[in-house]
């Protein structure tokens, strides 16, 4: 350990004056394999907590783009056709089925089944059935793993969203992106390892959906913004030119270095490294969001310039189409630059009423850019190592929502017992439908998958054993999958 400090100190002292000290330092730390268990215990170990760490076993995926459709899209209208439900339209469910079930808004006594207005078509060689609003996703059906037997424990939004992001409906826990960057570090030298992109209205969970919980804040998601500077405080203040910013950082570096020589505290070296990374991020983040070198073909493929044909989006406004497509394209650019986990959050899927118009608007928004993202990644040879996930926090009821004070039934309530998500790339076996719900889409009848199982499998794809990726906090070894989780072998390519 002594040797380590000494070595770093030497590196630091010989190169820091040029302003490159920290870069060299971080590099040296990585080269030293500072992330084996002994080195982790070093007090200088947190100089670069995002340095790459070895997984438990050979990984398939290197990056993840997690498209979180918060609010919960209707599985029976998008992914899981139920002709029988249409036949039973208007009928009540047998009491035995709803007896011990709680709903958010729906009145059990008078609720009746509501068929879907959507039509479904088989796509691809695999013949995956998707609804008429998802033709672009249909065109990549052979790359998709459609999971129809998902289920969760929560039926209110914020708890449900926490369960999806953190493995358990509780506060103070790290999100998936935090666990991944904590376990694996990030390949990006100039950008955060865990990035969050939002479009439209805010989600129920707000900032709790990308917090690092009991893990250090360096593992929190960094929010990229839709307007102004891409990262908060990225821009050098008005009136301070970049040259003076550089000169200022050199001066600061020298002053901090002098203090380091006095106090020998590695935290000072770490601070210098942070300032240098900040400076690099000032250049890297604007370059990242600058789409001017994307071809018109790419821009068109993602549908960046499309406008919605109908109203909807639950107050998010017509700019959502552009913002969402933009986020999909940015996600690809981030993955190219080594960002570990990109979380696109879109919170406009809570369709208690106006289900049909809202689905037209939202599916119309998402279908093309998500499909384009998958194709684009594939064409660039990135899909194999990039896991793309589409998921909401739960599904929606086969029963129409007959809430008090509304005389028309035009939507569906929250439904935790069965829903669908899909995955692509990153070591997933595409072109398959996994699991099955019953005739009305109520609950899985074959191959049920709990959110913790999904999370266990996600970690597995990254070469991590969900039982071994733990962090001790308050005497307990916490993990992403709480007290559950089974890796689903059938998903793996």
């Amino acid at each position, binding site marked *: *350990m002594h040797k380590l400090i000494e070595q770093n100190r030497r590196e630091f002292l010989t190169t820091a004056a040029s302003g490159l000290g920290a870069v060299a330092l971080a590099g040296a730390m990585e080269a030293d394999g500072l992330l084996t268990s002994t080195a*982790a*215990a*070093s*007090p200088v170990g947190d100089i670069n907590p995002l340095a790459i760490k070895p997984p438990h076993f050979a990984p398939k995926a290197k990056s993840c783009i997690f498209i979180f459709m918060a609010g919960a899209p209707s599985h029976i209208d998008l992914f899981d056709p139920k002709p029988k439900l249409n036949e039973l339209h208007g009928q009540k469910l047998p009491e035995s089925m709803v007896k011990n079930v709680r709903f958010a*808004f729906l009145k059990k006594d008078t609720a009746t089944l509501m068929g879907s207005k959507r039509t479904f078509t088989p796509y691809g060689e695999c013949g995956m059935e998707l609804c008429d609003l998802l033709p672009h996703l249909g065109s990549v059906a052979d790359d998709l793993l459609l999971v129809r037997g998902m*289920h969760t424990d929560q039926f*209110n*939004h*914020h708890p449900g969203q926490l369960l999806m992001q953190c493995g358990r409906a509780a*506060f103070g826990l790290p999100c998936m992106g935090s666990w991944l960057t904590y376990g694996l570090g990030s390949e990006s030298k100039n950008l955060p390892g865990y990035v969050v992109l*939002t479009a439209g209205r*805010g*989600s*129920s969970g*707000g*900032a709790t959906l990308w917090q690092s919980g009991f893990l*250090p*804040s360096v593992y929190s998601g960094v929010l990229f913004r839709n307007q*102004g500077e891409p990262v*908060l*405080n990225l821009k*050098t203040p*008005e009136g*301070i*030119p970049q040259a*003076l*910013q550089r000169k*200022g950082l050199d*001066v*600061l570096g*020298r*002053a*901090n270095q002098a203090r380091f020589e*006095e*106090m*020998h*505290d590695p*935290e000072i070296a*770490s*601070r210098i490294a*942070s300032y240098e*990374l*900040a400076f690099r991020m000032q250049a890297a983040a604007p370059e990242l969001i600058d789409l001017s070198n994307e071809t018109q073909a790419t821009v068109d493929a993602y549908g960046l310039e499309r406008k919605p044909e109908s109203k909807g989006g639950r107050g998010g406004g017509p700019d959502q189409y552009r913002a969402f497509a933009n986020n999909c394209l940015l996600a690809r650019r981030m993955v190219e630059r080594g960002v570990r986990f990109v979380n696109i959050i879109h919170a406009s899927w809570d369709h208690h009423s106006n289900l049909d118009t809202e689905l037209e608007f939202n599916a119309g928004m998402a279908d093309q850019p998500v499909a384009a993202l998958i194709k684009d990644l594939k064409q660039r040879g990135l899909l194999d190592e990039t896991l793309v996930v589409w998921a909401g926090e739960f599904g929606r009821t086969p029963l129409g929502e007959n809430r008090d004070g509304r005389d028309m039934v035009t939507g569906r309530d929250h439904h935790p017992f069965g829903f669908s998500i899909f995955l692509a790339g990153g070591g997933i076996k595409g072109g398959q439908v996994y699991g099955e719900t019953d005739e009305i889409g109520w*609950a899985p009848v074959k191959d049920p998958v709990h959110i*913790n199982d999904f999370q266990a499998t996600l970690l597995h794809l990254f070469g991590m*054993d969900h*039982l*071994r990726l*733990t962090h*001790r906090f*308050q*005497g*307990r*070894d916490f*993990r992403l999958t709480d*007290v*559950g*989780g*089974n890796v689903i072998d059938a998903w793996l390519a």
Partner: protein
Amino acid sequence: MQRERRPACQTGCIRLLVGILLLSAAGAARAQDPPEGDFSRVQPIFVERCYECHGPDQQESGLRFDRRDKALAGGDSGAWFVPGKAAESEIVRRITSDDYDRMPPPDDPKGPLSAEQIATIEAWIDAGAKWPEGKGTLSSHWAFQPIERPEPPAVKNESWVRNPIDRFVLSKLEKQGIAPSPEADRATLIKRLSYDLLGLPPSVEEVDAFVDDNSPDAYERLVDRLLDSPRFGERFARHWLDKARYADSDGYEKDRPRPDAWRYRDWVISAVNADMPLDQFTIEQLAGDLLPDATPMQQLATAFHRQTLTNTEGGTDQEEFRVAAIFDRVATTGTVWLGLTVGCAQCHSHKYDPIAHREYYQLFAFYNNGDETTTDVPLVGDPLIKWQRDKRAAERKLADLAPKLEKRRAELAAEVPAWEAELKAAESEPLAEHPIELVDAKSSGGAEIKRLSDGSYLIAGKNPDKDKLTITARTDLPKVSGFRIETLAHDSLGGKGPGRTGHGNFVLGELRVFAAAEQKFKPEDRVVLKTAEADYGQDGFPPEKAIDGDEKTGWAVGGQTGRDHHAQFFATGHIDTKKAPWLQLVLSQNYGGGHTLGRFRIMALTGGDPLRGIPQNVRDVLAVAADKRDARQQQTLVDYYLGRDEQLAKLADEVKQLKDRASAEPVMQVRVISQREKDRRTSHILDRGDFLSPAEEVQPGTPAVLSPLEPRSTERTDRLDLAHWLVDPANPLPRRVLVNQIWSHLFGRGIVRTMNDFGVRGEPPTHPQLLDWLACELAARSWSRKQLIRLIVGSATYRQSSAVREELAEVDPLNNLFYRQNRFRIEGEIVRDLALEVSGLLSDKIGGPSVFPPMPADVAALSYAGNFKWKESEGEDRYRRGMYTFFKRTAPHPNLLTFDCPDANTTCVERRASNTPLQALTMLNNETFVEASQAMAHRALELPAADDHQRLARAMQWCIARTPGAKEVAPFAELLSESRQYYAQHADEAKTAVGAYRPDGVPAEEAAAWVATMRMMMNLDEFLTRE
């Protein structure tokens, strides 16, 4: 759908990069390892690897390792070890086996025991497998043992010792042959004390005075001065607020603001400043409402446990979240006072610590009858000043208005005879309806309006959700008494109308009429409609609802659709249509869901009963001749006449409001906890923590492993008993835990490093005797926080230099021995406070409602559906200390989170101090810090200084609280000169860089160069670090 759920508490222990926490475990072990073969070396292995199946919850094969008698008795298949003969012992065979019968079993994710663990067990058996009496049961764990006052040990280097703390520290150091670090220099000491006790930098004058003060008690006087500062209360209150998970909003999806939350924060600040003893501090917060004759302030203290989250998301089960809040109260109490992860026992008995599932729910039972309520507390601070101002203003206004009201009353009363005469004179004209000349009709919702030949309108085309029809008309009638709206059936309408919903209904929300001389309508042309009648009105939708001023209610005909209806609306008296022949009728239909009119006709009305709308009792009086009426009857008449006057009504209303305001009590409502007296809840064990699965009933009680609970009465055990139990001298844990918390604020870490875990899985104290001695001192010093702090900061241990000693990097890299002070970055709120203080911007106001310093607008928009607006504070409130920043749980101020402030969703007894590029970006570029650097440059430029060097050195002194050497100033001089060169050629940028902070007579170019330089000074590691 049954899933195999494997408790995480039992699994995975690969310690990935846990860094500090883990290393310290190793370090601690190294510093005080028991001899090889000692039981205390094997016990942790049993806990970690064997308890899951052979422990308190399960005893597979009849074997358990958590109790000595059972362990020695062996399992179903007999003895598992042979004392002195490891090689012949069954346990050694099993833990070294490669076969299916290996222990722990081959599918255990943690894998087999390590070679070191196996060797430890072998050594213990070979040494005779001694299992001391009372050991091995969880209750023998150090933290649960009674506190016996330890004697401070003798040391060789007596001269180093300032107080007994130093003996405990030095004696360990001497055993290791390590010398303590030298005392920090005086400038460092005053900076350290100011950061620790106030969270603010010392001023240059304060530093100079202390450095030059040669009196023997200079240090003690400094400490006293700091402890007496009201800023001390803020500093230590904020530490406590972390534990209270204090926030200004509800949490969860809706995350509504809690505008009264700050009252609890103020309570904590005053309690700390008043040095409320920690036992009292505990009792009032947990059970202030149950104290005899509880004061409003004692009730306010219970808001500690009212900081739990509230879920108002649509469709939630309130009982579920009430129970969740109680879980949080139990967990928080456990962490803050017991240092135990009590929450683990919510679903099952605690795997490692002696808290049974049942005991958890006994703790739960204490809180189960504490309801979330509100109470009145006296106003203080700004709100009180505002209240006084409002009261005076109201009184002044009242003095002005009251005579006006009386005057108007008198005027009206005088009019009564004339009015009565007019009524009498008015011949009762018969009611008649007349067509009016329709000039124009518009639909705000874009519906199509057709005129039919019978003078009615038919609405077609798009059916908007809501609509407003504006009809302009003219009449030749000399006077009009009202209007008639005929709603008519039509075959083109759903259900034949007359409305446009599928079943033919409509809701006429509001009818407004204007009459004017020209075709131009102003608000004052409004004709007030007073009475309404209709041939039919749906239940809950009578015609009066169309003139009640409420857009959401209205007239509808559900139940009788498909046929014609009409309603008549009358003005008071007559509309003088001779003078004002132009009419505008506005028909609002805002009910929604397309409840709009389908076909209708408008007619003007003349005549009708002049007494229309006059209630029967008034009519009765009118029927009596004026000279025959008694006083009461006369009063009825006057009252009625007065009651019709809008001007009077407005005046009277205003006067009433002013009177209310003038006589209001100076109190505000705050959220607190109070004991439920009616319908008291029984408490049950909840199966797996599910609120829908109550099992066996339980009574309030405390864990058996700690001192017994002594309730005030055997009939009822409540929170006050729990609070008393926590601070009972016989209860060893809370004092150890509280002392450790205070120590950590003064050393950057606790004597028990795992601040939140004093249990079996936590780390043992590095200085167990010191911990217990301090716990005794706390009690001996009347539980005084200030006295305990005075004691600790008075030690030589505290006063050591914090320079890292590389020669000890291998022996004790984490400074477990306290051979030096620690260096650590100060907290997020304080980062901002420091910057504002050195720039001269920081407000010195203490307490009061939360404030809204600058924040990018889109941060607030991230919360649910963008329902939160961040209205930036003005004036002084922009520059309040960081602890007063409004804390919105789902969208906290990013500057706070970036610097590791807790998210307030769960209790936090230990903050991290991470070091990230986002922090650098914040310090360099964030609006708050940019403004601070501008103000700091302004302040520097106003210094009376001879030259740049002097000025730079002084500014640097503000930040680092010591006089910098020439070599330290030089780089900044370089930056200043380079900045000058730049701005000399970029005057416009200079103006921008300076902002609003250019001192008089200084060119912008010069001021800008100073801004660019000060900015970097504010980023010095030394400034942000408590050394």
